[in-house]
């Protein structure tokens, strides 16, 4: 167990590789109750969410979910999050555990002048993520929750419970937000069924990494804007306004100086967070943000933040790993194809 966001979190149960493969091939379940939830309601709810969020919630149908970021004026990221639209005056935000205090303070500060009620609901909700190609059957046959009608990034409410077709693994899957008591019960039912493996934070990271999903703190931060992270698709610069719009519009026009890219090494050595990326002359051009020897594809790869001049695909670069320098090439930062059911 490791402390994380005020929770004692399991890194692994049966082993990272075993759990990772369970999610890719069958079904795995994560207790992600550490995630934060904030409810924003009121006549200005839509306008306010659009003010703090890079994606566009205007015209979004009820029951739909959008991914995006909250940015600072300078374009750096406060957090990345999901926004669930419950109705025209009701939006449910899911934020990263490590950022809950910061985000809650930020959301409150920015709300001045808007007719909204803000409710921090992290204590009320536990959360399970049921992920993998068999997730839909497991939801239905073990928990009795039919999900066939849910398309990718949509949700439904069953009483106080929220069920969405979302996840952080690159596989089909669902997330359930419910009272801690209910989440406990579901967990026990899932474990007793033998239909899915319990999964820890370890494989949560290897799974999201393989499909190129960012982790706040690694690929997004106060200093790494969504554009630098290659997530411009979630930043709607054509919106009337949102915090960070000016800076990001300028960055888009001028081009980013540094960029998150993928690197594949020829060797089996593993590039880890913080290791230096060098050009072929041996000069530092950036650093690794996340790296693994991938479980699904058996390759040593990483995401790294490097000078944009070297970001073109197939560019030769090197990574310093302890005392040695290993050659690699810039590749797409999706190392394994997502398998969503859309």
């Amino acid at each position, binding site marked *: 167990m490791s402390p994380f966001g005020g929770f004692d979190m399991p*890194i*692994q149960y049966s*082993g*990272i*590789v075993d759990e990772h493969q369970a999610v890719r091939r069958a079904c795995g379940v994560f207790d992600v109750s550490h995630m934060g939830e904030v409810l924003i309601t009121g006549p200005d709810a839509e306008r306010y969410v659009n003010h703090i969020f890079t994606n566009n919630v205007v015209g979004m149908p009820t029951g739909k979910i959008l991914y995006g970021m909250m940015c600072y004026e300078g374009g750096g990221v406060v957090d990345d999050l999901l926004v669930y639209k419950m109705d025209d005056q009701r939006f449910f935000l899911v934020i990263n555990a490590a950022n809950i205090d910061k985000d809650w303070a930020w959301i409150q500060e920015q709300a001045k002048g808007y007719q909204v009620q803000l409710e921090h609901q992290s204590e009320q909700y536990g959360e399970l993520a049921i992920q993998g190609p068999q997730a839909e059957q497991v939801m239905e046959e073990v928990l009795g929750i039919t999900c066939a009608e849910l398309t990718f990034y949509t949700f439904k409410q069953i009483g106080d419970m929220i069920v969405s077709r979302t996840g952080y693994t690159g596989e089909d899957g669902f997330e359930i937000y419910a009272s801690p008591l209910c989440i406990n019960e579901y967990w026990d039912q899932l474990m007793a069924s033998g239909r899915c493996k319990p999964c820890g934070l*370890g494989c949560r990271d*290897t799974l999201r990494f393989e499909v190129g999903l960012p982790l706040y703190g690694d690929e997004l931060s106060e200093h790494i804007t969504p554009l630098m992270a290659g997530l411009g698709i979630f930043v709607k610069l054509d919106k009337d306004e949102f915090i960070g719009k000016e800076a990001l519009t300028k960055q888009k026009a001028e081009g980013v100086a540094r960029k998150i890219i993928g690197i594949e090494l020829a060797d*089996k*050595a*593993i590039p*880890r967070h913080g290791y230096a990326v060098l050009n072929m002359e041996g000069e530092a051009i950036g650093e690794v943000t996340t790296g*693994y*020897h991938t*479980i699904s594809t058996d390759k*040593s790869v990483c995401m790294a933040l490097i000078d944009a001049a070297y970001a073109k695909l197939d560019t030769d670069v090197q990574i310093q*790993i*302890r005392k*040695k320098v290993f050659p690699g090439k810039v590749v797409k930062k999706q190392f394994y194809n997502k398998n969503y059911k859309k």
Partner: protein
Amino acid sequence: MARVIEGLYYSESHEYVRVEGNYGFIGITDYAQNALGNVVYVDMPDVDDDIEAGEEFGAVESVKAASDLYAPVSGTVVEVNEALEDAPELINQDAFENWIIKVELSDKGELDNLMDAAAYAQFCEK
């Protein structure tokens, strides 16, 4: 309880030395491989490199993290276990069978600073 083998010498950083004449076979213990989980890469020194007791000489990487290897004794590397280059998981299968480097010992007196199997087993219990 951690599996140990009689007759080997053990360090507090969970390396072992199996001594044959003037040579020592150095690897990580069963306790260490179990704590690391799936080993995916072993960073080994080159033949002819000198290693010094207490100094780092390579690393064992699991999926989650890199763990430095510390030399339990000083000497010159005469062989590295090349099988680990293609099959690092051999360490998980049998850590004592699959040594990492073979060194020519420069000071056999250093072995006195290491633990025997019983002492190491007790050390792992703590």
